Every structure is written in structure tokens, then in C-alpha cells.
């Protein structure tokens, strides 16, 4: 079974040979994916990977530290606008720009983390929600951000064009490899961080912040750090998202997006990196592929069009997306509060102890 015998066993990245084997298999599949995938699906995979980065970051805040954020679309927007504007106006190379944008997001995360020291539950929800809306309005009003019309992301070049070293990434497939590498680094980084002193401090705050403080965890440092790290992840994800979309406006980053992010980690399972990855994959797939053209689905599509014609309106069928999302959210809390990770654990337990 999963018994840990000493500390070094607990902090290993790959806890067993099986995990190592399947991780390598997964990486192999992911790296060879463009060979057998049509190009539209690569676009979808890019969005999934961006959302995986964000969900893993949000999970650090919500799942591990137990804070609530309804404003992550704000950090996401800071990352997207920050990266594109730094590259366009200041001519900063891509990697420096995305890290700088991530750090700006982290700084705003730190600032929004300060009131969070005194707020909890619904009060924190409204404060973060207000932050998300404020960011959306600010970028919608200021000319430098392109206003309501939105901006075009600059051509993606991961070299340093000013020094004559140019590595343009002009197709979805090339972008896919860039995002994949960043996503793997950040997911493993998050998984590792949760096994360090910092990660354990986060979990202690989630379980009982007063007890944690008594044990010597500095709440000021670690709560704001959790916000900052989570915002950094969101900022980097946002920076990549801007290039995936190519064109974005302030309304891309609305409140519904923040809710969808929260749904990803709740559906995946709070407090687990694997859960965040699974949840982000599933919800993004549903949002951007399966439910996008619901009337073209086999069997179900025709039935839905028929129902729409009889009782609802056919033009409103696009809202089916939102209905399904609502049902998933309700269902997961009522029937499976641990999310997909909980289901996974149950399956694993069942097979490990099989005859019994």
C-alpha cells in the first residue's frame, strides 16, 4: 500500500516505479501528439494546457491554502495583457516578458492577499470578485490596453530578435511544444512545492489557521505568498493564452471565466495537483469542444433541437453549455465532493485490494 516509511520517501517526485512508468508514457504521448492529431485539436490542446497551468496555480490557493478566489480571471488578464504589451511596446523578448508579466500578477496577488489576512469565506469571495471586475474595467477603459476593442497579440518569437537570434513560432503545433514544456515544468514545480516547508505551511493554514499560527507559521507571509504564487501561475497561463487566442478583449476575462476556473479545480478535486490537471482537461474539453456545437452532436443534438423547437428557442440552444456546467457543479458537490481525484482514489483502492 501507500505507506510512507521515511521523509525521503515522502518527498520523492515519483513515488513508485509504476508512477514513473506511466508519467514517462504520458510525456511520450504528449510529445508525439501532433503527429496523429489534426490541427484544430492542437489548438484545443493548447487551451487545455494553458488552463492546466492556471488550475494548478488556483489549486495552490483554494485547495491547499483554503482561501477563495473569484477573481482569477483578473490575474489571467494581467498576464495576457502584460506579456503582449511588454513585447509590443518595450520590445522585451518573450521569456523575459512572460516572467515579468507573471511577477506583475504575483505582485497584485500579494496586494489582494493583504486584505485576505482579515477576511474569510463570503467576505473574501466578494473582495476577490471586486478585484476581478476592477481589472476588467481598467483594461476596458485605458487606451494603452486597446480599450473595449481588444488587442492583437504580437508574433510569438522565443528568441531575441533584436540580437539577430530569431526563433519564430508561427503555427499551433510549434506553440504546442512551448506550452507543453512550460506546463510540465510548472505542474512538477507545484507538486514539488507542496512537499516543501512552504507547501506544508499552506496546508496547515487550510486546516486551521489559528493552530498554524501557534505552531509558528507566519500567516502574513504564507497567506500573501499563496496568493502571489497562485497569481504568478495565472499570469504565466494568461501570457500563453494571449498567444493561443491571437486576439483578445477585456470581456474574454469576465466573471464567468473566474467561475469556470473554480469549477475546474472543484470538479478535478481540491488539494491535489493531479485533480487540477484532470479537472482543467475535462472542463476545457466540454467548454471548447463537446458543448460548443451541441446541435451537431450525434443523437442528442437532434433531440435537443426538437425540444428547443417545441418548448424553448433554437437560437438559445447555445446556452446549453451553461446549463451543463451548472449541472456538473451541482452534481459534483452533492454526489462526489472529492471530485475526479476522489473517484480515481476509489478505483485505485478497489484494484489494489481486489479480492477483498
Amino acid at each position, binding site marked *: 500500500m501507500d505507506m510512507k516509511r521515511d521523509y525521503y520517501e515522502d518527498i520523492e517526485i515519483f513515488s513508485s516505479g509504476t508512477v514513473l512508468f506511466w508519467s514517462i508514457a504520458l510525456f511520450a504521448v504528449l510529445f508525439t501528439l501532433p503527429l496523429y492529431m489534426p490541427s484544430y485539436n492542437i489548438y484545443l490542446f493548447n487551451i487545455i494546457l494553458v488552463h492546466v497551468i492556471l488550475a494548478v496555480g488556483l489549486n495552490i490557493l*483554494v485547495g491547499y491554502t483554503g482561501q*477563495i478566489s473569484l477573481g482569477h480571471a483578473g490575474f489571467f488578464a494581467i498576464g495576457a495583457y502584460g506579456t503582449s504589451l511588454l513585447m509590443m511596446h518595450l520590445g522585451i523578448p518573450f521569456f523575459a516578458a512572460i516572467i515579468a508579466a507573471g511577477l506583475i500578477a504575483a505582485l497584485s496577488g500579494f496586494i489582494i492577499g*493583504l*486584505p485576505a489576512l*482579515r*477576511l474569510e*469565506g*463570503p*467576505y473574501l*469571495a*466578494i*473582495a476577490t*470578485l*471586486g*478585484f476581478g*471586475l*476592477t481589472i476588467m*474595467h*481598467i483594461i476596458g*477603459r485605458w487606451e494603452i490596453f486597446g480599450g473595449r476593442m481588444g488587442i492583437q497579440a504580437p508574433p510569438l518569437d522565443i528568441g531575441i530578435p533584436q540580437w539577430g537570434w530569431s526563433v519564430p513560432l508561427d503555427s499551433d503545433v510549434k506553440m504546442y511544444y512551448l506550452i507543453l514544456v512550460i506546463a510540465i515544468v510548472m505542474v512538477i514545480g507545484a507538486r514539488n512545492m507542496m512537499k516543501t516547508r512552504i507547501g506544508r505551511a499552506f496546508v496547515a493554514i487550510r486546516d486551521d489557521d*489559528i*493552530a498554524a499560527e501557534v505552531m509558528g507559521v507566519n500567516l502574513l507571509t504564507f497567506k500573501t505568498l499563496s496568493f502571489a504564487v497562485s497569481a504568478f501561475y495565472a499570469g504565466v497561463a494568461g501570457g500563453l493564452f494571449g498567444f493561443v487566442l491571437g486576439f483578445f478583449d477585456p470581456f474574454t476575462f469576465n*466573471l464567468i471565466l473566474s*467561475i469556470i476556473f*473554480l*469549477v475546474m479545480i*472543484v470538479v478535478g478535486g*481540491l488539494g491535489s495537483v493531479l485533480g487540477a490537471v484532470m479537472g482543467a482537461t475535462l472542463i476545457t474539453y466540454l467548454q471548447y469542444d463537446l458543448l460548443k456545437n451541441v446541435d451537431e452532436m450525434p443523437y442528442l443534438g437532434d433531440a435537443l433541437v426538437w425540444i*428547443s423547437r417545441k*418548448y*424553448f*428557442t433554437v*437560437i*438559445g*440552444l*447555445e*446556452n*446549453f*453549455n*451553461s*446549463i*451543463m*456546467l*451548472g*449541472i*456538473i*457543479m*451541482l452534481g*459534483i*458537490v*452533492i454526489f462526489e*465532493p472529492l471530485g475526479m481525484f476522489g473517484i480515481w482514489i476509489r478505483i485505485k483502492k478497489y484494484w489494489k485490494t481486489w479480492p477483498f
Partner: protein
Amino acid sequence: MIEQLIIEGLAIGACYGLFGVAVAIIYKTSDVVNFGQGEMGMISTFVAYHILAQYGLPFWLAFVLTMVFAVLLGVFIEFFFLRPAKDPTVLGLIIITLGAEMLLMGLAGWKWGAEQKDFIFPLSVQKVHEPIPGLVLNEWSMGVFALTALIMVLLFLFFRYSNLGIAMRATQQNQNAAKIMGIKVERVFSFTWGLSSFIGAMAAMFFAARSVLDPNFMMEPFMRAFAAAVLGGLTSIPGVVMGGLILGLIENFFGYVWPVWKPIVAFVVIIIILTIRPSGLFAKHYVKKV
């Protein structure tokens, strides 16, 4: 001019306050923040619109039918979405109400489409009266003031003197003790949701009369009302209305001086006030015991 700003601000603030009361009643009784409140009001308003436009009934009858629908909707959501969840966490509860919000918004969009509709409401913003010389009031504001005052008085009497009101207060203080005293806590919760949905639907109709009717129209007012409720302190009902009035005034003055930033001033003020007084202006702050 300045009086007009004050009156307008107070009127819209009273409407925020009224809607905030709907949020606060649920929070007070069951510790659930209902993020679906706006969409519950929205769908009730759409039902009223549907009755008016489709069947051509007089407004008062449509109003009564809508109120019945609103109460049933509130009870339905409590019964089918909140009651089955076993020991949900704060985040779990937020996800449930957000899920109800997405569901209702999707249903309304499916049924009525996304195009904007005009909601015919007997009290219009255009028709003005001058009850006292120098004080110009439009019918809408008069309606809001009258309704808010009426609801406040009724709620006060209800929580003070009726058995059910006292049961709701008892449930808020200590659920287990209330159960021992013979209060059916689940039934109290259902009733709370019905009452809250009732008040929220009325406020939503007032909002619809001011703006247009589409599946997203309650999003902004809900967030303002929620902010107002948090500002006043979610557990005190007069505090919530005061919070609404303050928010309405701030927003109106700020919107006059600096109209570009009107939509966000409310939230900036809320964040600042919450940093100074974490439980809102008028609620007692309880220090958590270990």
C-alpha cells in the same frame, strides 16, 4: 442638483439594499452565500414578462403569479440542490449556488434568447412628481422607497413576533439547540429560501424596470447588492439596507464627478472598508474561538 443626486442615489441604494436583504436573510439563517440570487430574481422577472406578453394578464395578477413562482423556485433550489449535500464546505456551498446560477442563466437564455426586451412596469422612471416644492421624485423611486420601508417593517415584525421568525433566529444562533427545541431546521431553511426569493424577485422587477430585460441583466445589480450587504454586515438586516443606501450615494456622487469609473467604485470602496472592518460596518465582529 445636489438634492437630485442624493435622491437618485438613495433610490437606487434602497433597491440594492432590498436585494441585499434577500441575500442576507439566507446568509443569516443558514450561513450560505447565495450567488444564484441574482439569477433567481432574473428568472422570476422573465416569468412575469412571459405572463404579461404571452397571456396579456393585468399587471397585478402577473405580479401575484410571479411571486408564487419565486417562492416555489426558492424552495425548489433549497430542497433539491442544498439539502442533498452532506456536510458541504464553505467552498462547496459557493459552488452549489454558482451552479444554480449557471443553470438558471442557461435556462433563461434557452427559453427567451439573448436579445433585450422591454419590461412593462407600472412605475416609470420618466414620470416625475413634486410632493414637496423643490423635491422632484420619479414614480420608480417612490415605489422603491415605499416597498423597502414596507418590507423592513414587515421583516421586523416577522422576526420579532411570529413563531417562524423566532425559529429562524434560533436556527441562526445554534442549529443543534434549535433541533432539540423541536424546530424542524430543514423546513426553516426551505422557508428562508422561499422568503428570500420572494424579496429578491420584487427587487429584480424594479431593476428590470430601470434597465432592459435579458438573461444577464441581474449580474451587475446582484454584485452591487451583494457588495452593499457585505458593506453593511451580512448578519444585520437594517445594516444591509444602510449599506445599500451608502453604496447608492457613493456610486451616484462618484458617477457624477467621474463617470468613467462608476462601475468599479463600489468594489474599491468595499475592499477598503472590509480591510478596516472585516465584518462590515454594522455587524458585530465575532472573534473566532479556538
